[in-house]
Protein backbone atom coordinates (compact mmCIF):
# COMPACT_ATOMS: atom_id res chain seq x y z
CA UNK A 1 0.00 0.00 0.00
CA UNK A 2 2.69 2.42 1.06
CA UNK A 3 4.66 1.67 -2.08
CA UNK A 4 1.64 2.38 -4.26
CA UNK A 5 1.05 5.72 -2.59
CA UNK A 6 4.65 6.82 -2.97
CA UNK A 7 4.74 5.56 -6.56
CA UNK A 8 1.59 7.52 -7.39
CA UNK A 9 3.01 10.60 -5.66
CA UNK A 10 6.19 10.19 -7.68
CA UNK A 11 4.24 9.92 -10.94
CA UNK A 12 2.14 12.98 -10.14
CA UNK A 13 5.24 14.88 -9.14
CA UNK A 14 6.97 13.86 -12.34
CA UNK A 15 4.04 14.90 -14.54
CA UNK A 16 3.88 18.32 -12.84
CA UNK A 17 7.61 18.82 -13.34
CA UNK A 18 7.51 17.77 -16.98
CA UNK A 19 4.79 20.35 -17.72
CA UNK A 20 6.93 23.21 -16.52
CA UNK A 21 8.50 25.44 -19.14
CA UNK A 22 12.28 25.12 -19.26
CA UNK A 23 14.03 27.25 -16.68
CA UNK A 24 16.70 29.72 -17.67
CA UNK A 25 16.87 32.17 -20.51
CA UNK A 26 16.94 32.04 -24.24
CA UNK A 27 18.46 35.00 -26.04
CA UNK A 28 15.62 37.41 -26.80
CA UNK A 29 15.33 38.14 -30.52
CA UNK A 30 15.66 41.68 -31.87
CA UNK A 31 12.12 42.53 -32.97
CA UNK A 32 11.04 44.31 -36.12
CA UNK A 33 11.77 44.04 -39.83
CA UNK A 34 15.48 43.74 -40.52
CA UNK A 35 17.13 45.31 -43.51
CA UNK A 36 19.87 43.30 -45.20
CA UNK A 37 22.38 45.44 -47.09
CA UNK A 38 25.19 43.43 -48.60
CA UNK A 39 26.93 41.67 -45.73
CA UNK A 40 25.24 43.83 -43.09
CA UNK A 41 21.96 43.19 -41.33
CA UNK A 42 20.42 46.37 -40.00
CA UNK A 43 17.92 46.06 -37.17
CA UNK A 44 15.28 48.67 -36.41
CA UNK A 45 16.66 51.11 -33.87
CA UNK A 46 14.93 53.66 -31.65
CA UNK A 47 15.76 57.09 -33.18
CA UNK A 48 17.05 60.13 -31.28
CA UNK A 49 14.50 61.79 -29.04
CA UNK A 50 14.28 64.61 -26.51
CA UNK A 51 11.40 64.88 -24.06
CA UNK A 52 10.84 66.52 -20.67
CA UNK A 53 10.08 64.63 -17.46
CA UNK A 54 8.07 65.33 -14.28
CA UNK A 55 11.00 67.26 -12.78
CA UNK A 56 11.42 69.47 -15.87
CA UNK A 57 14.61 67.61 -16.81
CA UNK A 58 15.42 66.77 -20.42
CA UNK A 59 15.23 63.06 -21.15
CA UNK A 60 16.97 61.75 -24.25
CA UNK A 61 18.75 58.63 -25.48
CA UNK A 62 21.75 59.45 -23.28
CA UNK A 63 19.50 59.19 -20.20
CA UNK A 64 19.32 55.45 -20.94
CA UNK A 65 22.97 54.89 -21.85
CA UNK A 66 24.20 51.63 -20.36
CA UNK A 67 20.68 50.76 -19.24
CA UNK A 68 17.69 48.87 -20.53
CA UNK A 69 14.27 50.47 -20.35
CA UNK A 70 10.54 49.78 -20.47
CA UNK A 71 8.22 52.08 -22.43
CA UNK A 72 4.51 52.78 -22.43
CA UNK A 73 2.05 55.46 -23.62
CA UNK A 74 -0.78 56.88 -21.50
CA UNK A 75 -2.69 59.98 -20.48
CA UNK A 76 -3.81 61.07 -17.04
CA UNK A 77 -7.54 61.49 -17.71
CA UNK A 78 -7.71 58.16 -19.56
CA UNK A 79 -10.98 56.40 -18.67
CA UNK A 80 -10.10 53.07 -20.26
CA UNK A 81 -6.97 50.91 -20.08
CA UNK A 82 -4.32 53.33 -18.71
CA UNK A 83 -4.82 52.75 -14.96
CA UNK A 84 -4.52 48.99 -15.47
CA UNK A 85 -1.37 49.43 -17.52
CA UNK A 86 0.03 51.79 -14.87
CA UNK A 87 -0.73 49.23 -12.18
CA UNK A 88 1.34 46.70 -14.13
CA UNK A 89 4.13 49.24 -14.75
CA UNK A 90 4.15 49.79 -10.99
CA UNK A 91 4.57 46.03 -10.53
CA UNK A 92 7.58 46.10 -12.85
CA UNK A 93 8.97 49.14 -11.00
CA UNK A 94 8.62 47.41 -7.63
CA UNK A 95 9.92 44.06 -8.83
CA UNK A 96 13.14 45.70 -10.09
CA UNK A 97 13.43 48.35 -7.37
CA UNK A 98 16.94 47.18 -6.53
CA UNK A 99 18.11 47.07 -10.16
CA UNK A 100 19.44 50.49 -11.29
CA UNK A 101 20.14 49.15 -14.79
CA UNK A 102 16.40 49.13 -15.51
CA UNK A 103 14.51 52.41 -16.04
CA UNK A 104 10.87 53.05 -16.95
CA UNK A 105 9.69 55.64 -19.49
CA UNK A 106 6.01 56.64 -19.82
CA UNK A 107 4.96 59.09 -22.55
CA UNK A 108 1.80 61.12 -22.24
CA UNK A 109 -0.15 61.32 -25.47
CA UNK A 110 -2.27 64.24 -24.19
CA UNK A 111 0.40 66.94 -24.15
CA UNK A 112 -2.14 69.76 -23.85
CA UNK A 113 -3.50 68.64 -20.48
CA UNK A 114 -0.67 66.55 -19.04
CA UNK A 115 1.68 69.41 -18.20
CA UNK A 116 4.88 68.94 -16.20
CA UNK A 117 3.20 69.91 -12.87
CA UNK A 118 0.41 67.41 -13.54
CA UNK A 119 2.93 64.71 -14.40
CA UNK A 120 4.72 65.58 -11.15
CA UNK A 121 1.51 65.17 -9.13
CA UNK A 122 0.83 61.88 -10.92
CA UNK A 123 4.35 60.65 -10.13
CA UNK A 124 3.84 61.56 -6.47
CA UNK A 125 0.59 59.62 -6.47
CA UNK A 126 2.43 56.61 -7.84
CA UNK A 127 5.19 57.16 -5.27
CA UNK A 128 8.03 56.83 -7.78
CA UNK A 129 11.60 58.14 -8.03
CA UNK A 130 12.24 60.28 -11.11
CA UNK A 131 15.60 58.72 -11.99
CA UNK A 132 13.93 55.29 -12.12
CA UNK A 133 10.67 56.19 -13.85
CA UNK A 134 10.38 59.18 -16.18
CA UNK A 135 6.90 60.49 -17.07
CA UNK A 136 7.55 62.61 -20.15
CA UNK A 137 5.84 65.12 -22.38
CA UNK A 138 7.07 66.84 -25.52
CA UNK A 139 6.03 67.87 -29.00
CA UNK A 140 2.87 65.98 -29.87
CA UNK A 141 4.14 64.92 -33.29
CA UNK A 142 7.39 63.62 -31.80
CA UNK A 143 5.50 61.44 -29.33
CA UNK A 144 3.04 60.07 -31.89
CA UNK A 145 5.87 59.36 -34.27
CA UNK A 146 8.15 57.59 -31.83
CA UNK A 147 5.22 55.43 -30.71
CA UNK A 148 5.54 53.70 -34.06
CA UNK A 149 9.20 52.89 -33.36
CA UNK A 150 8.05 51.21 -30.15
CA UNK A 151 5.42 49.20 -32.11
CA UNK A 152 2.71 51.19 -30.38
CA UNK A 153 -0.25 53.18 -31.54
CA UNK A 154 -0.86 56.68 -30.21
CA UNK A 155 -3.14 59.14 -31.92
CA UNK A 156 -6.04 61.51 -31.38
CA UNK A 157 -9.41 59.97 -32.02
CA UNK A 158 -12.52 61.87 -30.92
CA UNK A 159 -14.62 58.72 -31.35
CA UNK A 160 -12.97 56.75 -28.52
CA UNK A 161 -13.52 57.36 -24.78
CA UNK A 162 -11.13 60.05 -23.56
CA UNK A 163 -10.33 61.22 -27.10
CA UNK A 164 -7.09 59.31 -27.70
CA UNK A 165 -6.50 55.92 -29.21
CA UNK A 166 -3.51 53.95 -28.02
CA UNK A 167 -2.28 50.45 -27.37
CA UNK A 168 -1.58 49.23 -23.86
CA UNK A 169 1.71 47.57 -24.63
CA UNK A 170 4.82 47.61 -22.49
CA UNK A 171 7.97 47.49 -24.63
CA UNK A 172 11.47 46.45 -23.58
CA UNK A 173 14.47 48.25 -25.15
CA UNK A 174 18.07 47.09 -24.85
CA UNK A 175 21.30 49.08 -24.54
CA UNK A 176 21.67 49.17 -28.33
CA UNK A 177 18.21 50.79 -28.73
CA UNK A 178 16.64 47.60 -30.07
CA UNK A 179 13.17 46.35 -29.15
CA UNK A 180 13.60 42.97 -27.47
CA UNK A 181 10.23 42.11 -25.93
CA UNK A 182 6.74 43.44 -25.37
CA UNK A 183 3.56 42.45 -23.58
CA UNK A 184 -0.06 43.37 -23.04
CA UNK A 185 0.09 45.85 -20.17
CA UNK A 186 -3.51 45.16 -19.16
CA UNK A 187 -2.86 41.45 -18.57
CA UNK A 188 -0.97 40.44 -15.42
CA UNK A 189 0.04 37.04 -16.83
CA UNK A 190 1.47 38.62 -19.96
CA UNK A 191 3.45 40.97 -17.69
CA UNK A 192 4.72 37.99 -15.62
CA UNK A 193 6.33 36.60 -18.76
CA UNK A 194 7.61 40.07 -19.70
CA UNK A 195 9.33 40.46 -16.31
CA UNK A 196 11.17 37.17 -16.93
CA UNK A 197 12.34 38.63 -20.24
CA UNK A 198 13.59 41.73 -18.42
CA UNK A 199 15.60 39.57 -16.04
CA UNK A 200 17.00 37.57 -18.95
CA UNK A 201 18.07 40.74 -20.76
CA UNK A 202 19.73 42.04 -17.58
CA UNK A 203 21.57 38.73 -17.24
CA UNK A 204 22.68 38.95 -20.87
CA UNK A 205 24.64 42.14 -20.25
Amino acid at each position, binding site marked *: MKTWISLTALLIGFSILSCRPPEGCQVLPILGNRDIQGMDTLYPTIPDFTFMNQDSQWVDNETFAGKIYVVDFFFISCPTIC*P*KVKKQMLRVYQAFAAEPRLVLLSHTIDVRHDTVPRLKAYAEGLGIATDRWHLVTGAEDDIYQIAGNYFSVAKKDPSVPGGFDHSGRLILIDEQRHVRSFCDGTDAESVDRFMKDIQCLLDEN
Partner: protein
Amino acid sequence: MAACQQPYSQGKALYESACGSCHMTDGTGLAGLIPPLSGSDLIRTRPDLLPCIIQNGMEGKLLVNGQEYDQVMAPVTGINAVEMANILNYIQSEWGDPGLFYSPDRIQQILSTCGSGPVNLGNTGAE
Protein backbone atom coordinates in the same frame (compact mmCIF):
# COMPACT_ATOMS: atom_id res chain seq x y z
CA MET B 1 -28.46 32.19 -10.69
CA ALA B 2 -25.69 29.64 -10.75
CA ALA B 3 -23.26 30.60 -8.03
CA CYS B 4 -24.24 31.09 -4.41
CA GLN B 5 -20.90 32.68 -3.56
CA GLN B 6 -21.53 35.85 -5.55
CA PRO B 7 -25.23 36.65 -5.95
CA TYR B 8 -24.55 39.72 -8.09
CA SER B 9 -23.01 38.16 -11.17
CA GLN B 10 -24.56 40.80 -13.41
CA GLY B 11 -23.33 43.50 -11.08
CA LYS B 12 -19.87 41.96 -11.30
CA ALA B 13 -19.93 42.08 -15.11
CA LEU B 14 -21.19 45.67 -15.07
CA TYR B 15 -18.59 46.64 -12.47
CA GLU B 16 -15.79 45.23 -14.58
CA SER B 17 -16.83 47.16 -17.68
CA ALA B 18 -17.87 50.45 -16.02
CA CYS B 19 -15.52 50.70 -13.01
CA GLY B 20 -12.84 48.00 -13.27
CA SER B 21 -10.50 49.91 -15.61
CA CYS B 22 -9.69 52.41 -12.88
CA HIS B 23 -10.64 50.75 -9.58
CA MET B 24 -9.27 47.42 -10.89
CA THR B 25 -11.08 44.10 -11.19
CA ASP B 26 -10.02 43.25 -7.63
CA GLY B 27 -11.06 46.68 -6.29
CA THR B 28 -7.57 47.67 -5.17
CA GLY B 29 -7.35 50.99 -7.07
CA LEU B 30 -4.01 52.47 -8.15
CA ALA B 31 -1.40 53.52 -5.58
CA GLY B 32 -2.05 57.08 -4.31
CA LEU B 33 -3.99 58.03 -7.46
CA ILE B 34 -7.19 55.99 -7.52
CA PRO B 35 -8.69 54.95 -4.17
CA PRO B 36 -9.47 51.30 -3.48
CA LEU B 37 -13.01 50.01 -3.04
CA SER B 38 -11.77 46.83 -1.43
CA GLY B 39 -11.48 47.51 2.30
CA SER B 40 -12.50 51.15 1.82
CA ASP B 41 -13.91 52.86 4.90
CA LEU B 42 -15.79 55.32 2.69
CA ILE B 43 -18.05 52.79 0.97
CA ARG B 44 -19.15 51.37 4.33
CA THR B 45 -19.77 54.66 6.11
CA ARG B 46 -21.11 56.83 3.26
CA PRO B 47 -23.21 54.38 1.20
CA ASP B 48 -25.72 57.04 0.13
CA LEU B 49 -22.96 59.08 -1.46
CA LEU B 50 -21.97 56.38 -3.94
CA PRO B 51 -24.85 56.76 -6.45
CA CYS B 52 -24.07 60.50 -6.70
CA ILE B 53 -20.35 59.81 -7.20
CA ILE B 54 -21.15 57.39 -10.02
CA GLN B 55 -23.66 59.75 -11.68
CA ASN B 56 -21.81 63.07 -11.27
CA GLY B 57 -18.18 62.07 -10.87
CA MET B 58 -15.88 63.47 -8.24
CA GLU B 59 -13.21 66.13 -7.76
CA GLY B 60 -11.14 67.68 -4.98
CA LYS B 61 -9.20 66.07 -2.19
CA LEU B 62 -10.56 62.92 -0.61
CA LEU B 63 -9.49 60.72 2.30
CA VAL B 64 -9.90 56.95 2.07
CA ASN B 65 -8.48 54.84 4.89
CA GLY B 66 -6.43 57.87 5.95
CA GLN B 67 -4.74 58.23 2.54
CA GLU B 68 -5.31 61.42 0.54
CA TYR B 69 -6.38 61.24 -3.11
CA ASP B 70 -6.76 64.14 -5.52
CA GLN B 71 -7.65 62.93 -9.01
CA VAL B 72 -10.79 63.76 -10.94
CA MET B 73 -13.26 60.93 -11.46
CA ALA B 74 -15.38 61.32 -14.59
CA PRO B 75 -19.12 60.65 -14.35
CA VAL B 76 -20.12 57.13 -15.37
CA THR B 77 -22.60 57.50 -18.21
CA GLY B 78 -24.89 55.03 -19.89
CA ILE B 79 -26.10 53.04 -16.89
CA ASN B 80 -29.62 53.12 -15.50
CA ALA B 81 -30.82 52.84 -11.89
CA VAL B 82 -31.27 49.06 -12.07
CA GLU B 83 -27.72 48.60 -13.36
CA MET B 84 -26.37 51.00 -10.76
CA ALA B 85 -28.14 49.02 -8.02
CA ASN B 86 -26.55 45.85 -9.38
CA ILE B 87 -23.09 47.43 -9.41
CA LEU B 88 -23.37 48.85 -5.90
CA ASN B 89 -24.81 45.65 -4.46
CA TYR B 90 -21.86 43.81 -5.97
CA ILE B 91 -19.35 46.32 -4.56
CA GLN B 92 -20.88 46.20 -1.06
CA SER B 93 -21.20 42.42 -0.98
CA GLU B 94 -17.66 41.90 -2.27
CA TRP B 95 -15.70 44.63 -0.46
CA GLY B 96 -17.93 46.68 1.80
CA ASP B 97 -20.88 45.90 4.03
CA PRO B 98 -22.76 42.88 2.62
CA GLY B 99 -25.70 43.86 4.83
CA LEU B 100 -26.26 47.01 2.78
CA PHE B 101 -28.71 46.68 -0.05
CA TYR B 102 -29.68 49.15 -2.77
CA SER B 103 -33.03 48.73 -4.48
CA PRO B 104 -33.50 50.53 -7.82
CA ASP B 105 -36.12 52.70 -6.09
CA ARG B 106 -33.65 53.75 -3.43
CA ILE B 107 -31.07 54.54 -6.12
CA GLN B 108 -33.64 56.70 -7.96
CA GLN B 109 -34.47 58.50 -4.73
CA ILE B 110 -30.80 59.19 -3.89
CA LEU B 111 -30.03 60.33 -7.45
CA SER B 112 -32.78 62.96 -7.23
CA THR B 113 -30.90 64.57 -4.31
CA CYS B 114 -27.43 64.71 -5.92
CA GLY B 115 -27.76 68.08 -7.60
CA SER B 116 -25.41 68.85 -10.46
CA GLY B 117 -21.65 68.89 -10.66
CA PRO B 118 -19.05 66.51 -9.30
CA VAL B 119 -19.13 65.37 -5.68
CA ASN B 120 -16.47 67.23 -3.68
CA LEU B 121 -15.87 66.12 -0.11
CA GLY B 122 -13.26 68.81 0.52
CA ASN B 123 -10.57 66.60 2.02
CA THR B 124 -12.93 64.65 4.23
CA GLY B 125 -13.62 61.00 3.96
CA ALA B 126 -15.46 58.44 5.96
CA GLU B 127 -16.49 60.45 9.00
